[in-house]
């Protein structure tokens, strides 16, 4: 992909952003009910970038490792959806959600990873559902899994399907607001070129082009 030519035209991206924001609304509602506290979610920025750019972008914010949830999906288009947080931010999120302020990073045990997985699951499902609705097509999400490591590792894990260096990332900056805390995370949809073309076609259909 050359730098000059965007992967997808801007108005496609805007359409995706709009739809994802609707998805976030329902995710926030589900999370609020789950943890019995108001959760607000917003997606201030959506863009398509190369995996390298995505890696750099996230790495710039996350000084250390990242942790989060990934979930394969297929249907209208396929890929690997991920919700990622810089580790300190993920800790903040779990603390807020579990309402245990004194928990340290070391306390983030398997059980807390599970909680993280569930939160990610709700958000990612909402994103996927909103896109499935938008395209009027079937989207199937797999069982989510917890991931942890450097941005590099997480975004290029060989065990996953999209290890293609040409992979494209639909990168969403995401703001969490819970328990009067603001937490920044990222939602990424890691796709190979074919899948991006699928997505583009779906959007074109949606836009009636």
């Amino acid at each position, binding site marked *: 992909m050359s730098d000059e030519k965007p992967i997808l035209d801007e108005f496609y991206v805007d359409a995706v952003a709009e739809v994802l924001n609707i998805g976030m609304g329902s995710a926030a509602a589900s999370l609020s009910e789950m943890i019995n506290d108001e959760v607000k979610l917003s997606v201030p920025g959506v863009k398509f970038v190369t995996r390298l750019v995505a890696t750099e972008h996230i790495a710039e914010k996350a000084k250390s490792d990242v942790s989060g949830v990934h979930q394969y999906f297929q249907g209208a288009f396929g890929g690997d959806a991920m919700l990622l947080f810089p580790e300190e931010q993920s800790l903040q999120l779990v603390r807020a959600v579990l309402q245990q302020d004194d928990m340290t990073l070391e306390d983030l045990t398997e059980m807390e990873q599970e909680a993280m997985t569930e939160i990610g*699951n709700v958000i990612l499902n909402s994103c996927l559902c909103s896109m499935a609705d938008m395209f009027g097509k079937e989207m199937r999400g797999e069982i989510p899994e917890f991931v942890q490591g450097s941005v590099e590792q997480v975004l290029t894990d060989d065990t996953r399907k999209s290890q293609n260096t040409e992979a494209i990332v639909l990168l969403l900056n995401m703001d969490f607001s819970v328990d009067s805390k603001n937490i920044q995370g990222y939602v990424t949809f890691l796709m190979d070129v074919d899948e991006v073309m699928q997505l583009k076609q779906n959007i074109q259909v949606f836009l009636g082009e």
Partner: protein
Amino acid sequence: MCLQNLANSQLIYQHIFSESESGLIVIDKEYGLVNWNPWLDKHSGFDLKHVQGKKLTEIFPVLENSSIERGIFSALNHSMSTSVSHTLNRKPFPLKNKIGQLLQQQIMIKPIIMEDRQRYCLIQIIDISASFNREKQLLEQAKRTKAVSEKLAEEKERAQVTLNSIVDAVITTDEQGYVLSMNPVAEVLLGVIEEQVQYKRVSDFFKLINEKTRNPIPCPVAECLKSQTIIENEKEHILVGAAGRFSINDSVSPIINDDGVMLGTVLVFRDVTQSRALSAELNWQASHDPLTGLANRRQFEIDMNNLLTKAKSDNLQHHLLYLDLDQFKVVNDTCGHDAGDELLIQITEILDKKLRKSDVLSRLGGDEFGVLLESCGVENALAIANNLRQAVEGFRFGWHTHSFKIGVSIGIAEITGEEAKASEVLSAADAACYVAKESGRNRVCFHETEASGSSTHQQEMQWVSRLQAALDNDCFELFLQRIQCVECADEESEHYEILIRMVGDEGEIIPPGAFLPAAERFNLIGSVDTWVVENVFKKLEALRSANRYPKNLILSINLSGTSMANDDLLERISCLIDESDFPAENFCFEVTETAAIANLKQATTFLSSLREKGCKIALDDFGSGLSSFAYLKQLPIDYLKIDGLFVKDIAVDNIDKAFVESINQIGQVMSLKTIAEFVENDEIMSILMDIGVNYAQGYGIHKPTAFDEVFPIT
């Protein structure tokens, strides 16, 4: 064949479904329960047959509005899989174990889409109670461990901060003596940094030497490791390191755990360079005389005690010399203390030159010196003492225009090892020195040991108690010796010198030579003086009462040098004269030349007061003190008593005669009346008459007679 395989395959799946150790639930599009496996029968308490076709929320009403319900919806309508955690999910399936405890569940909800597009939902429930409980325990344990390790870290931090801030240098080692840690003070004193010596043995860089011998001292850490006890040292250690030399105090303590196993050591040391130098200086000052640099009395006694201890075991002879300068007072009083100090310094040099290397010379007091002669026989000791005496005698001390001839009286005592204390030997030598002084100064006198049976010192000691008893019981008697006018030899004057005698237990009369030296020595002379004064007045009072108070009476009363400083006595005399109303000119007070000079200032004050009152003053034993005539001008005197030693041989010794002539001449020039003592015969008397001496006193004129005999009351 193919059908058979298929049938088998289905059978296998059925078995897997039935035998699965997790819960499996299948829901259809209408949310109705299609099937669940026996695991759920077992844990839910429901029989599949009775609940099949019902909605899950009917079977388990608790699931209404739960994450599980949402997950099922999402799977059936959106083909989304859901993972429901036990952590966040407040509404799990009400599934229980055998003993009725709620199962901790991990739930996964997945869409199943059949080939005919028929949708189902598969719910998988895994019992994670065991791992949940294990984790809970681990978490608690981790929290406890963390609390403990935080506390340990805090303690360690505190210990580290303490180590870094204390003034002592501290090094810790392992059980082999290898350095584990070192604080900043240790780094400074050793001139190394911790990293340089870590895992080195302390003995590799902690080098000690002995302050005095400069010999290396074995590393105390090694010693401690060997003995497993605390090794402490507070003297003589010098640390020699890259940062220089330091006097240090050091101690090493073993670190031994509860099982008695040696874990290592702690070496603590401190720079005491300054304090040790200071204490060395103080020690020197405490044990030495700053003027002459000689050991002082304290140090001398220590040296002597050491020698005493030695004398007990060896069979060698040792001696002690006690030196007293004869003319020091004169120099000090006529030329000032600077001269006196200079004299002492020069005398020290003279004495030092005449001594053997092993002899110890010390300054014991103002003008008193002591010499310890180790391994020195009697004859040798006498020879050394005489050498010293001659050296001093041959020395002339010059100060500005003055030149003084100095003498020294020396007492010798033997150190036999029998003596209990140094002070005993010192007293013996002192007593011998006193005898030397008494017998005319500038001589050496050997202390007579107890074995010889007549120790002056011992005798004096006995006299102390006798004197005290005599004072308490008035066992003294007053004697008189007439002082005769030479020109009017045929007239009997009423001029007497008062003399004192002690009355013994048997009524025997004891001469003053027997007890006065002891009285002088032991500070009883003042009391004797007072007794004499009081009793003279008593006698006179008795005479007056009997109407026999003599006319033209002059009574000469001897006062000691000590009394010159006794204001109470002065007051008493003054009071007695006033109260009795006896004419003051009836009393003459005699002080020896030596006593007057020794306390010149006090004597002048004391005698002036009496003289102002109207009393007469006589300077006794003039000539014996070898003093300068200059004193005569200062002292307020009326009579000059020429020392009898010059008088008694006047008939045969021309030098003595010349002495008496010159003393008389000086006296006459100064308008003093001269009195010659020891006038034993008429021949002397006629020579005195020729010379022009005013008065004479002696056995040839009048033998001392009891007061009551001279002036009988009845």
